[in-house]
């Protein structure tokens, strides 16, 4: 089961947990939360703004979730990303994976976040405490941008 979304509203952990599928065959459930931190590359961050191309984003999330079926075929995946203005400590992205065993859950979760970082049409602008703001440099997209991590033994 796959659930993917991009939203401007606050990501609430309890709501994520209650909406994530609980499957009797899954003994492992791993959650990753990305939160806004107060520093980046030596600069003090006050807040961040995420921009997103919503329709394509959801397609890319779904594509990535389908690819993660290499590990989670008998389980469930939830991907939620927020865009708009976020304060320090707020959740920007949540990834939930349920699989029969923990090894697959950790691998699927890691795969999903690494792919989101290089493929999802999302951009981050950091607002610094000195009053300046900057769009964070990112990863160039191409038609077939996939991530190859030998440790994960995945090549797409």
């Amino acid at each position, binding site marked *: 089961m796959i659930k993917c979304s991009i939203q401007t509203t606050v990501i609430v952990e309890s709501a994520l947990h209650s909406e994530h599928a609980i499957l009797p065959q899954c003994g492992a459930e791993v959650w990753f939360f*990305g939160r806004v931190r107060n520093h980046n590359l030596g600069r003090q961050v006050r807040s961040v703004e*995420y*921009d*997103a*191309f919503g*329709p*394509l984003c959801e*397609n890319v999330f779904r594509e990535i979730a389908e690819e993660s079926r290499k590990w989670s075929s008998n389980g469930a995946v939830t991907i939620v*990303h927020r865009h708009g203005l976020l304060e320090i400590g707020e959740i*920007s*992205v949540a990834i939930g994976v349920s699989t029969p065993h923990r090894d697959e859950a950790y691998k699927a979760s890691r795969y999903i*976040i690494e792919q*989101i*970082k*290089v*493929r*999802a*049409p*999302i*951009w*981050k*602008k950091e607002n610094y405490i000195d009053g300046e703001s900057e*769009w*964070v*440099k*990112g*990863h*160039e*997209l*191409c*038609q077939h*941008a996939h991530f190859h991590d030998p440790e994960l033994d995945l090549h797409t």
Partner: protein
Amino acid sequence: MNKIEVEIKLFGAFRKYGSLPIRFEFSEAKTSAEVKAVLGEYLQKTFPEFDKELVQTSVLANDKMVLSHSNLIEQSCQLAVLPPVCGG
């Protein structure tokens, strides 16, 4: 021949150059690379401080997928210009 109207939504660092989509009109089909070049020329002419590397490192996309450089745009459509990404 019918005009081909291409509307390009701006995202990320491109937002510095406007919040509304930019519209172009073509009299014949263009590749994605050609449309991107036209966008780059327009931004460079309109904004003296525009860094052309931003267009060079960006791609065009529709709601469903990133377009390859050789993708032919033969009909009026809405696209988006996507600079290097950093979600998550």
